[in-house]
């Protein structure tokens, strides 16, 4: 298969690679370069300023706040989302009571239904989900507070997104709501490929479901859990948290910057405040945090690969 091979390769790669280089790779390289300039983004002129932007960033209280919130997102969101998803997936696939003469390992009744319903939020745009919950959180006419009133909790009427102490958690809850279903389905797929004999053996040895989960399911699923962990973390640091915070919280960025996250801060500095160079500096910090996060998870999660 040599005839015309290189012409063919170049012909097929030129367009995709060109687009990718122009719109993805080149802007990435540029942004690191811009972080050493005083470019406003409004005029084409700029000059090199060395590490000025970086030292300014270290003195910027709002930057530290946004970093703190982003780290909270990146650490807490995977724990809650993956924890819940593992529990649900285990119940759906393994947690069922044995029916007589049925297979030893089954899910609870209605597991197919749960899997379909739980996945709903995943197909919706995060922007639409954010809008929906912005209305639901409305303190006066929103669904949540009126539900609380409906069950007699008239005194419990939080301001949700308007309360600086609550807003971040309210936003995070929405991300959990929208992400859990995907992992339930993902882990279900992983659990389905675990051979039933493993469970049978564990049951014969007298293991209960908690032991079975920690000794059989989790170790065999570890690779999937780990890549899921990195995936949620990157989402939490990036596009998803941008959409929820920008759309849901007032300001945007919440009362007293209580919900500002790094991606939102990059956006505001670049497109609202006309400080493009400083924005790319925060972007570089975001890149460092993302890569560090992925490296740490990969490192901590390293185990011997189990074959089955």
């Amino acid at each position: 298969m040599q005839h015309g091979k290189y012409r063919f390769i170049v012909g097929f790669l030129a367009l995709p690679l060109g687009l990718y280089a122009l719109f993805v790779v080149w802007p990435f390289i540029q942004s690191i370069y811009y972080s050493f300039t005083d470019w406003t983004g409004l005029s084409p002129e700029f000059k090199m300023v060395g590490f000025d932007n970086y030292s300014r960033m270290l003195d910027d209280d709002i930057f530290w706040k946004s970093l703190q919130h982003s780290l909270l997102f990146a650490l807490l969101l995977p724990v809650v989302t993956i924890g819940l998803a593992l529990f649900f997936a285990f119940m759906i696939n393994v947690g069922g009571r044995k029916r007589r003469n049925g297979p030893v390992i089954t899910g609870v009744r209605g597991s197919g239904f749960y899997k379909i319903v739980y996945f709903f939020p995943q197909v919706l745009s995060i922007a639409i989900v954010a809008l929906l919950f912005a209305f639901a959180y409305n303190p006066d006419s929103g669904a949540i507070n009126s539900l609380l009133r409906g069950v007699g909790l008239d005194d419990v009427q939080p301001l949700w997104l308007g309360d600086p102490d609550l807003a971040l958690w309210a936003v995070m809850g929405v991300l959990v709501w929208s992400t859990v279903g995907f992992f339930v389905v993902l882990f279900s797929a992983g659990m389905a490929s675990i051979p039933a004999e493993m469970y049978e053996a564990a049951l014969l040895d007298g293991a209960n479901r908690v032991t079975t989960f920690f000794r059989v399911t989790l170790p065999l699923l570890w690779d999937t859990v780990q890549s899921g962990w990195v995936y949620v973390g990157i989402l939490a640091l990036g596009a998803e948290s941008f959409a929820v915070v920008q759309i849901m919280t007032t300001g945007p960025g919440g009362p007293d910057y209580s919900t500002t996250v790094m991606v939102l801060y990059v956006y505001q500095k670049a497109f609202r405040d006309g400080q493009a160079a400083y924005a790319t500096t925060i972007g570089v910090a975001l890149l460092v945090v993302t890569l560090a996060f992925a490296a740490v998870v990969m490192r901590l999660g390293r185990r011997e690969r189990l074959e089955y």
Partner: protein
Amino acid sequence: MKTTETPAPLPAESGAPITKTDLQPPPPAKERKEGTVLNVFSHGVLVIWAFMVVLPLLWAVMTSFKDDRSIFSSPWSLPDSLHFDNWSRAWTQANMSDYFLNTVLVVGGSLVGTLVLGSMAAYVLARFDFPGNRFIYFLFIGGMSFPIMLALVPLFYVVNNMGLLNTIHGLILVYIAYSLPFTVFFLTAFFRTLPTSIAEAAFVDGASHSRTFFQIMLPMAKPGLISVGIFNFLGQWNQYMLPTVLNTDPDKRVLTQGLVQLAVSQGYKGDWSGLFAGLVMAMLPVLAAYVIFQRQVVQGLTAGALK
């Protein structure tokens, strides 16, 4: 991907074959009790989560049929009558029809572009040995882990300088570029699994490389293209960050953008019912498509992550 397709339990008749499980000793009473408590608890949690997923959606659908007054006075009551005018108002006056059209154009164009360009690149990377192959491959998949936001600021100016800001085709090109990392990653793995003998036979028979690709390999790659196509469709349909930055012309807005803008402006006008109608209008097609093509959607979305 196989999900838990456990065979239906056999009827508990005396004639049923004795399986290994029948020979197990009955569990001790304590364990059975623990099992029951755990069962009730876990079932309860599953039901509660199902409600938590469905209730907000039902609430939105219900609200989209109510008039503004009852939205505020009694958020959870059923609508007194079905106000279909909310829907027609949102569709025509609030420009939902335009947003829909823009989204269909952008996603249609970029989906086709992503699949064609992505499979071309993936095919070459998977099947041909040439200097720089690994480098290009890692250049592509490296894009999966970088935060898009970092590139957005310079990207805005790249797009602006090319005169593509606020255009549908500009948005299409950018969507394609940002969809390529996962698409190339997924399809490269897929093309490697396809048998080479047929392609080689075609080539020996005198078909050119491109003809072999388009007439033999691409049809064989259909399952992979469907999976990655669904993944990209949902991602591009739901995209919010890229259009927010690159597309500020009110006439060119896509659905997600349009709705968010609508929420900001309608908040002052006070047309909440129309807004909810627009929200539900944007939600229902994807939800309906998901319920119909449930298996393919789940396969498409989980196939990549399981690798």
